[in-house]
């Protein structure tokens, strides 16, 4: 009799393990699909504009002090930082290079920081590039300006092609 009961118990034993295989199948199908459509290179943006008419804004605001009008010029083998009441700062540039080297970028950031520390609240800068300046170099200059706290960078063409 006790032997019979043990047999019945064996026959009625229910497998309580979770059935993970269907879930596994879904996840294994889902992961490659998501990975294939994922974007690993993040695209960001730099907001910019063309320089506005200085006379119009000056007339509207009528500031007590003349505006700083800070600008970074790209000129042949040089970067020149100029502004109202700021002694021009000259930094060497590799002519024809598609982007400034790290030493030049560091010098630019340091020089621009020195200007912004003397003129707190300054956030605007003009990047005045030559017609043949490469886009990567323009972006690198905007990065340097932003690192120095000049978050509003406007792009401008040098001399004859000025907008």
């Amino acid at each position, binding site marked *: 009799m006790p032997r019979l009961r043990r047999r019945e118990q064996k026959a009625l034993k229910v497998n309580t393990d979770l059935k993970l295989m269907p879930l596994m199948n879904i996840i294994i199908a889902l*992961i490659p699909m*998501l990975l294939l459509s994922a974007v690993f290179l993040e695209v*960001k943006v730099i907001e*910019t504009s063309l320089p506005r008419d200085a006379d119009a804004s000056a007339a509207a605001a009528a500031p007590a002090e003349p505006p700083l009008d800070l600008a970074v010029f790209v000129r042949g083998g040089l970067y020149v930082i100029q502004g109202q009441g700021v002694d021009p700062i000259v930094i060497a540039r590799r002519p024809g290079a598609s982007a400034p080297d790290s030493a030049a970028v560091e010098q630019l950031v340091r020089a621009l920081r020195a200007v912004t520390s003397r003129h707190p609240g300054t956030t605007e800068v003009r990047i005045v590039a030559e017609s043949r300046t490469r886009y990567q170099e323009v*972006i690198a200059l905007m990065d340097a300006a932003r690192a120095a706290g000049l978050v509003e960078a406007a792009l401008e063409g040098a001399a004859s092609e000025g907008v």
Partner: protein
Amino acid sequence: MRRRKPGNTRIMERYTSDGGLTLTSMMDILTTLLFFVLKSYVTGGEVTVPPPGVTLPRSNARADMHTSVVVAIDRDGIMLGTERVATVREALAGGDLLIAPLAQRLAEARAQMDDLDRMKGKAKTASRLATIQGDTEIEFRLLQRVMYTLDRSGFPDIALAVLKKA
């Protein structure tokens, strides 16, 4: 009469698995991976892929991309969306900074946007955002002309698309 099994055999039977895979640890890995991939979708802004032939410059900019008109500039020409509207030679020809074919297509795009806004009952927007996806090697004079054309065509807010530096 049943013969009694030796002691060590009984112990072996107790500890031997039934041959099934242990899936719990694999499930843990896959679930973590799934959350990681889903998170990368949630945190990103507007997802965009630069057109073939355009290598975006690298920058430490942090601002996310917003829905806007996209003008792509590669070494051969200028594209509005997926349509090529002008070649580099055409864009740089003449003394005028305005690129006529691009301006024409932008005017059409703007008119379409205004129509859509009207249908949705939104007020007319004075200025609109445009994103430039430029190749690293394009010259500034070309970028400048595209920016000038965008500004004159009612897109004064310009965003330059870049790849985030690692």
